[in-house]
């Protein structure tokens, strides 16, 4: 999903709830994309991903997702990541209902 040296975040699904989480600068998992740490170089992004993958007791399926940094925090580049941030479009369920 992530290519080149674009801005990226580490994302995954939580082990128990299965919902979408992102990695913060403090090394916590957040449910709010705006709190995610943005990595702008390959080396730090890869290192953060490797460290996140080792936390298999907390999360499943870690990967790097491209984002666009804005003054309000990172915005998803791809529509899939936008849906993951929001929830399904047919019901007001998931993240959009929890915000």
């Amino acid at each position, binding site marked *: 999903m992530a290519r080149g040296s674009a801005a990226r975040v580490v994302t995954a699904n939580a082990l*128990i709830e299965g919902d979408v989480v992102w990695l913060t600068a403090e090394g916590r998992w957040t449910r709010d994309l705006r709190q995610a740490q943005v990595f702008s170089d390959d080396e730090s992004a890869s290192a953060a991903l490797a460290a996140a993958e080792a936390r298999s007791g907390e999360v499943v399926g870690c990967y790097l997702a491209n984002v666009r940094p804005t003054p309000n925090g990172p915005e998803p580049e791809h*529509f899939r990541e936008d849906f993951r941030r929001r929830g399904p*479009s047919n019901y007001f369920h*998931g993240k959009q209902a929890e915000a």
Partner: protein
Amino acid sequence: MYHYDDFDRAFLAERNRQFRAQVARRIDGSLTEEEFRPLRLMNGLYLQLHAYMLRVAIPYGTLNPDQLRKLADIAERWDKGYGHFTTRQNIQFNWPRLADVPDMLDALAEVGLHAIQTSGNTIRNVTSDHFAGAAADEIADPRPWAELIRQWSTDHPEFQFLPRKFKIAVTGSPRDRTVTRAHDIGLRMVRQQGRQGFEVIVGGGLGRTPMIGKVVRDFLPVEDLLPYLEAIVSTYNLLGRRDNKYKARIKITVHEHGLDRVRELVEARFAEIGPLFDKAATAAQLGRIAAMFRRPPLQARPAAPYHAARTADAVFRAWSDTNLHPHRAADHAIVTISLKAHGATPGDATSDQMRLVADLAEAHGHGEIRVSHEQNLVLPHVALADLPAVHAALRAAGLATANAGLISDIIACPGMDYCALATARSIPVAQDIALRFEELRLEHDIGPLKIKISGCINACGHHHVGHIGILGLDRAGVENYQITLGGDGTETATLGERTGPGFAHDQIVPAIERILQTYLKLRNDRSETFLQAYRRLGLAPFRAALYQEDRADAA
């Protein structure tokens, strides 16, 4: 319908106990995700876009009221108060927590349901005709055979790690309502010189490389069914490719080796293992199963209240025009309960709706409920006299949409609203098409039409066999929808033809509208369906209608 015996109950309890322990070991860190993943998949548990998803098998689409009520309770207690019925006669719960799944499976076991082999490279839930045992056009009820296949395939030690998933469908009617020709194995009941047997179709499938199945045996005596199935799957298990996931289904095996070679290997294997099967034991078990599928005792009932309601109530008349199918008893009908209210998510039912359907089945339907691969529910045995009451109750629950087989009766996979594999959304496209044609008041004028939508190339929405098929793709980071026309999932199975370049999300509904305006303009008369008109006219006029505006814009 089939009732679990002590063996079934003990097997399921043990399997659920094992999975409970596996979940506990995953949560306490003893199992990694890599170790846990194949275990959860064998028990129907996926990790999707926003949450886990539990896929529960509804074998050959048959449910009793207690089972449907249990599904309602599970949806309410551990999910968000609804379930999603799928194109393979399963139900999916979209929001379970990992830690709750063992309790959900135990709850399912209380009513003889499970999620075993609803995922993974195994023989999946056996599907069948949702009108089985009731349709006037049927040779025999295929469900005893389907149950026999379920028992044979469940936890079959040789077939837990096939090259790829394996889907079997069985029909007892010459009118194919189970898409047998798009299954790894399709079984069509046939009669030859007074004997009952199966036409065995192999190597069908949709997905990335759609193929119509081929007849590997035109008449298989019924008593040879299990050894012959075992011979096919066993041949595939050795011959099927494991080097490339996209070439691993049996349709590719048949394509690469040729039907004759596959038949030769299957027949050789059949000759080898056939004698090892205990035919007497199988026949005894089949007899035991068949006794549980005896037709309910239908009482002769006057049809007068039905005809009176049709005269008096236009809404009832419209519903009975579209949502009833001929029953083998003339004073009864098969009722399709549409889960396709205009603007609703195809295949979704709330817990309250499930409970109502369970109550109606008990009161008026001999306790039988079916789930169709077209994502509707069915009451297979309702007296015509009871239809006004059934309709009134359904209507009050938002379940009386008069659209079975019409444009808004759309099959749609969950798409990117839920599925981790999807490349685009399906559900909103289905919702928008249904609402648009409702607004245009064209649904009944257009008549029989099957629109099928998939949110990725894996084709869970069967788009290749839709009269109009829609495939959602990701084109350079934007949702894009390709259209196929002329597909057919019945006994005259055909793959649809692609019209050309795809359409953006906000252009797909206008595109469908152009196709149907063209049909309305060019059909001979109202009796010529869309599919018939397409077969007569070919792709050209529809393609012209689809792309002329684009060309005008570009000019």
